Structures are given as structure tokens and as C-alpha cells.
């Protein structure tokens, strides 16, 4: 019996699939998070230049990667939704946005916490950090657009169009911020290349990145379940479901 992936495009099946794998996903993300933090804070050796302060990279670097990857995922699901006109991909796009915004905020704050001991300033006009700030503005724009339109179908398509249009601009923005940064500051104040990568540090980073991935998936799928229930409120299976767990 060939495995029919299309079956999971319909909300009821997708809802059941997610409900089954969600507990496992939360467990994995918790496990990875704890393991990553332990290796990062306990096992990894200190860095010769930056002393112990560099350990913030175990929070900052995965958060920055996730903020970028989630925005690309949002743009991907936006494109899929616009082409195939499936409401589920729009829902997944909507479910991803808040987690992406939270990751961007965390990356900025942890970047500031890292900059203070290293360069003595809470905010450093480094190309990467500045682009991260602009990415936060784009996330906020996406969430504001979502909140401003009442009709969910139209809000989905508007957010999808904006996500696609802005994701094409991100490389241009990053390029122009780097150009501006090197012209004014010169290469002196940058976040510097990654510290000497001993294997424990590498292991810590990999574990924390996987933890960030698992956490983002778990949180987005939980939010997706709510969106499916909300969007299919008047269908039979939702009434039966909510009726059953009264």
C-alpha cells in the first residue's frame, strides 16, 4: 500500500498525527536542551582570550540560526500555500512566526549580553547583529499584519505575500548593512570569528542547535493544533472532539 502523503494535507489527519508525535518532540527538546547546557557550561574548557564569557554562544548562536531558518521556513510554507492553495501550509506559517520572533529577540539580547563583557558596550553596530535587529522588525511586521486583518483566509494570503516579498529582500539588506559597517567601522569591531573550537565546545553547540530545532518544532506544532481547531471550528470532527473532552 503506497504511503499517501497527501492524506496528511487534510487537517483532521494532520491533527491526529501531530497529537501523536508532540509528547515525544517535547521530551527530545528538553533532553537535548539539558544535555547541551551541561556540556556547554560544565564540560567545555574556558577560552584563552574571552575567558568564560564566551559560553553565551551556546544560547546566542543557536538562537540566531533558528531565527533565520524559521523565517526561511515561513517563506517556504507561504510559497507552498500560495501555489497549492492548501490552508494547512498557511496555518503552519502562522504557527511558526511567534517562535521565530522569540528566537530573534533572544539572539539579540544574548548578543548584547555577550558584547558587554567583550567590548564594553551593550549594543555593537556589527553587521550580523544589525541584520538580526532588522529581521526582528520584519517578524513584528508579519505579526502586526496578521493581527490587522480579521478574515483569516485573507490574513493568511497577505502574510504569505509579505513573507515572500521580504525574504527576497533579506540578502540585499544584509549586503547593504555589511557594506555600511565595513565602510564606517572597518573590520575592528565585529563579533570576531568563532572561538577555538575544542570538541566539547563543538558538541555543546551541536546539542544546543538540535535542542533549538526540536523546541521550535514542538512549539510550532502545538500552536498549529490550536489553529486547526480554531479554523475548523464548525466542522463535525472538531465539535465531536471538543464535545468529547468536555
Amino acid at each position, binding site marked *: 500500500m503506497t504511503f499517501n502523503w497527501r492524506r496528511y494535507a487534510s487537517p483532521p489527519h494532520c491533527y491526529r498525527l501531530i497529537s501523536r508525535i508532540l509528547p515525544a518532540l517535547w521530551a527530545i527538546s528538553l533532553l537535548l536542551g539539558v544535555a547541551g547546557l551541561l556540556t556547554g557550561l560544565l564540560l567545555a574548557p574556558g577560552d584563552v582570550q574571552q575567558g568564560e564569557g564566551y559560553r553565551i554562544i551556546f544560547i546566542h548562536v543557536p538562537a540566531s540560526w533558528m531565527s533565520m531558518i524559521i523565517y526561511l521556513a515561513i517563506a517556504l510554507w507561504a510559497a507552498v500555500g500560495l501555489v497549492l492553495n492548501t490552508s494547512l501550509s498557511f496555518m503552519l506559517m502562522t504557527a511558526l512566526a511567534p517562535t521565530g520572533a522569540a528566537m530573534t529577540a533572544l539572539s539579540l539580547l544574548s548578543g548584547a549580553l555577550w558584547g558587554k563583557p567583550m567590548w564594553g558596550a551593550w549594543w555593537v553596530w556589527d553587521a550580523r547583529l544589525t541584520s538580526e535587529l532588522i529581521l526582528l522588525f520584519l517578524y513584528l511586521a508579519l505579526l502586526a499584519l496578521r493581527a490587522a486583518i480579521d478574515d*483569516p483566509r485573507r490574513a493568511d494570503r497577505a502574510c504569505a505575500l509579505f513573507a515572500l516579498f521580504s525574504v527576497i529582500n533579506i540578502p540585499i539588506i544584509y549586503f547593504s548593512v555589511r557594506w555600511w559597517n565595513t565602510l564606517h567601522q572597518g573590520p575592528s569591531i565585529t563579533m570576531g570569528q568563532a572561538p577555538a573550537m575544542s570538541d566539547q565546545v563543538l558538541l555543546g553547540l551541536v546539542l544546543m542547535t538540535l535542542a533549538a530545532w526540536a523546541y521550535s518544532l514542538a512549539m510550532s506544532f502545538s500552536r498549529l493544533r490550536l489553529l486547526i481547531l480554531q479554523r475548523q471550528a464548525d466542522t463535525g470532527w472538531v465539535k465531536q472532539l471538543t464535545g468529547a473532552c468536555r
Partner: protein
Amino acid sequence: MPMFEARQLSCRKGAHTLFRHLSLQLAAGDILHVRGHNGSGKTSLLRILAGLARAEHGSLWWQGVAQAADGAEQRQRVGWLGQRPGFKDALSAAENLADCQALHQQPPSAGAIRLLLQHWGLQASAAQASADLSQGQRQRLSLALLQLRAAPLWVLDEPFNALDEPGCTLLWDMLQQHVRHGGIAILSHHAALPACTAQLWLGSAA
């Protein structure tokens, strides 16, 4: 084979569904009267049939050919009259008509515009800015623009609004002439319209 056909249309507003599995066939010369109380989805249906909005499910067929979902082909065939006037207030009636003529790639002819203005009783205020026209005159200008576009399929949302008695007769004559030339008209109106060839009730029938 019907000239215009809609199959299994369904439309949702927010979380609840307005109509489902709605199909209709119209041949040349038909006038369909869409009825239903407020909020029954009359305007949503008309916007779907005009190719403005996208139905949740279902498809539109023109002379047996399925129309693209984004409605671009369908809109080229439709003369649309919505709740909004559809012309610029700052420009005069004559300017609006001339622009419409140019944008429809018709040869610019002041005579045709003068005829239209006289037919719709707007020649007296042809040079005034459209903002100063009365509500009835503005509806007549919208109908004049519709007549200028000469589209085969007319989709009119409450065309009789704000029209006085002579205005209604003018609209009826235009509809009859359009239908006699093999066109189709779909219109919504709250009161009964005896001369319509077909009726479609939305929501719970009265």
C-alpha cells in the same frame, strides 16, 4: 451547452460557511436574479462569479472551458457593478467616460460619449466634478460606464439602488437590449423582479 456555468461553489466567511455545492447554468439571453436576506452571501457569490474573489471549492466554466482559479480570464468577460461607484470623484462624467474608452482600447469618440450622457440624462452636469452629482446621478454614471464596456457577462450587485423611476426603466431597457444581443446578466435585488428568466435563493428560502 450552457454559455456560463458554475459547479459546486462553496464559500466560507471566517469560521462559518455561507453556501456549499452551489451550481448554476446560464445560456445566452438569461437574466438570473439572486435573492436572499442580508448576510446570506449574495455579494460574496456575485464577487466569485465575477472572478474577483476565489471560491473555497468549485469552478467556473465559460462555453465549456474551465476558467483559471485566479479569475483573470473570467474578469475580462465580466461587466461588474459593485457597491462602490468605480469612477473618480475629482474627474467629470465626460472625463471618466473618455478615460474608460481609452483604457478599453476603443477609438476615442466624443460623439459616443455625448450620446451616452444624453441617454442617461447626465449631459447637463457633464463638466461638473462627479463628486457634486447626486447619488442617483452617480449610479447612472456607473451604468453608463458599464454600457460603454460592452462585456458579454454582466454581474450587477443591487443595481437598482438610488435609482429613480425613469432610471429604473432605463436600466431595464439596457438589460433587455444586452440580453437580446446574446449577453447574460446576473443581478441581486431585494424586491421581486418579474422579468427575470431564473431565480436563485441563498440562505433559507423565504
